[in-house]
């Protein structure tokens, strides 16, 4: 089957690196250098390489590559796959811009895409604003005992899964929920406020789900900052906001980039919060992908949309990292 040509890609990449390593080993003769198998024993060495190869090839690289090539195929019933109708096509990507059934611009999906990206950016900014003060307090001002307690307090709600956390927010924000009860009892409004229909629930849900993902990288980055630097800035008469802008934030930049990247990627790819907290007219991009798989059974188009999302996320994150001059290696720790 033509689909299996993707197996060649990792084979070629590995071969190139193998040849390069041979070449380098020959050029620099070092008698103390041992091969991987010598250093770990033959059996263990083979087991290690086998495990890593299985993971990087069969669980990571090949599925991604396979999904990408699937998105360049038409939607076919199983029997016709590999037959004469099974040619390479850009139809699935075209359908993102032009709806195939009507020939009009596919504004529905394009606006859902833009909305998902913008909302994720908004949620990322919101979470940064909420988490930064606490992370700073924990890293610089709190005593060790207090910090450990706060840490535990942060981790406990995190182990309640995403669905139940969305459910708990729905209970609070529903028209019969506690917040609306309070609003009506206080006489602020006579009718319940529709938090879920106006997407407030969605934003709160996304922010709530990924608070921790923001706070830990920030804390780790700020924690290693020498207190004397802050003292020095203060002694020189810097107001508090300048201390943050010119001392703490530049120092914590890798942590900030890491937290923001993670929150953005998780929000853009989230499924639970949009499904359970989004308004009835809200279209989240991953929910569209979900429907292609489970309602339309159009896997190639779903794969194409998934790839569009992935490419957009990667592009966006790379652009931000470039903008803030942080390398990818610093981001993932």
């Amino acid at each position, binding site marked *: 089957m033509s689909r299996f040509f993707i197996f060649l890609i990792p084979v070629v990449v590995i071969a190139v*690196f193998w040849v390069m*390593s041979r070449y380098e080993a020959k050029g620099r003769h070092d008698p103390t250098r041992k091969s*991987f198998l*010598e*250093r*770990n*024993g033959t059996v*263990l060495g083979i087991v*290690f390489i086998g*495990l*890593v190869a299985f*993971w*990087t090839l069969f*669980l*990571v690289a*090949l*599925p*991604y590559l*396979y*999904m990408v090539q*699937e998105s360049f195929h038409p939607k076919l019933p199983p029997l016709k796959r590999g037959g004469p109708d099974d040619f390479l096509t850009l139809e699935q990507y075209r359908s993102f811009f032009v709806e195939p059934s009507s020939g009009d611009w596919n504004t529905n999906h394009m606006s859902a895409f833009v909305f998902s990206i913008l909302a994720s950016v908004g949620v990322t900014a919101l979470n940064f604003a909420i988490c930064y*003060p*606490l992370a700073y*307090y924990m890293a610089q*001002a709190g005593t060790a005992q207090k910090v*450990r307690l706060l840490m535990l307090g942060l981790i*406990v*709600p995190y*182990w309640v*899964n*995403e669905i*139940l*956390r*969305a*459910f*708990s927010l729905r*209970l*609070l924000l529903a028209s019969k929920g*506690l917040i609306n009860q309070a609003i009506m009892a206080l006489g602020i409004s006579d009718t319940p406020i529709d938090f879920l229909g106006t997407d407030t629930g969605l934003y709160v849900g996304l922010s*709530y789900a990924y608070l921790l993902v923001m706070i830990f990288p920030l804390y780790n980055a700020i924690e290693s900052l020498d207190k004397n630097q802050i003292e020095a800035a203060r002694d020189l008469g810097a107001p508090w906001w300048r201390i943050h802008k010119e001392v703490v934030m530049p120092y914590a930049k890798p942590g900030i980039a890491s937290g923001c990247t*993670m929150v953005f*990627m998780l929000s*853009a*790819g*989230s*499924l*639970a919060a949009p499904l*359970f907290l989004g308004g009835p007219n809200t279209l989240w991009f991953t929910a569209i*992908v*979900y429907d292609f*798989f489970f309602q339309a059974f159009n*896997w190639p188009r779903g*794969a194409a949309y*998934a790839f569009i999302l*992935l490419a957009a*996320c990667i592009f966006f994150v790379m652009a931000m990292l470039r903008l803030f001059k942080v390398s*990818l*290696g610093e981001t*993932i*720790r």
Partner: protein
Amino acid sequence: MSSKFVMKGMIGFYVFLFFAYLFGPLLVMSITAFNTPNYPQAYPFEAFTFDWFVKLWNHRAMMEGLHNSIIIGVGVVAVSVPIGLAASIVMNQIYHRARGLYYLVTVSPVLTPGVIIGISTVIFWKDMMGLTDVTKGLFYKGIVLTILGQSSFIAAYCLLIIMARLQRFDRAQEEAALDLGASYPQVFWHILLPFLKPALISAAVIAFLSSFENYNTTTFAILADKTLVTVLAGEVRQGTTPALSALAVIIIGFTLVGAIIYEIMRRREERVAADRARAAREAERQDLGAGALAVQAA
């Protein structure tokens, strides 16, 4: 003085607000689990009941999902911890020009949206296992695919956890063992593995918990089967029942117990470490004393 006092009060208030945001929804949900009305309601509190816990226990699909979730969790631990261990050792020894690419490939699943991991797993393995009827019958199952899909990113978590400890490994220990005639596999089994044990245990715990609560990847990879979380998602989509709150109460309870045990263990460990440090200081002082005596005697 007074401005400092105000500042402190404001920070305290902020921390309070933050944790109210974090715990408030969970607290309200927990109250609804013990209230009688059919619609989960925290106020007015009508009457205390355990009915919703009984309903939860009798919920067939949820119990079946729980069973599958545990099998998947154990499977994911069995697959990802060894992979994480092997990958961290390879990371340390790999040909240095390949390291950048290797790093990129191994950590990319952490950043990839879970939905995409789920989709790619299903598309790839459907064709892979569909090659022969035997493999299709044996392996093309929701549980197997979910283990494979989840392991792809959970193995990366394990790699990062184990790497962090491996970097603190003192190579002199390895060299000493080799000088004393140990073989490389012996060094691995008797020196490296015991050193990595705490990291391996925390990797296993994190792997199980991440697998247990995962939704995005699982919802695609599980096919026609179900896990606790996918059943839960179906229930939340259909409507709301206090039985879900009851489940949340149980999970929160387990987490709290775990957190308390962890805290107690940490404190005990610290006390042991402090005792040991004191004993060492004591011994050192005695050594010095003995040395002084010896000098005097000479």
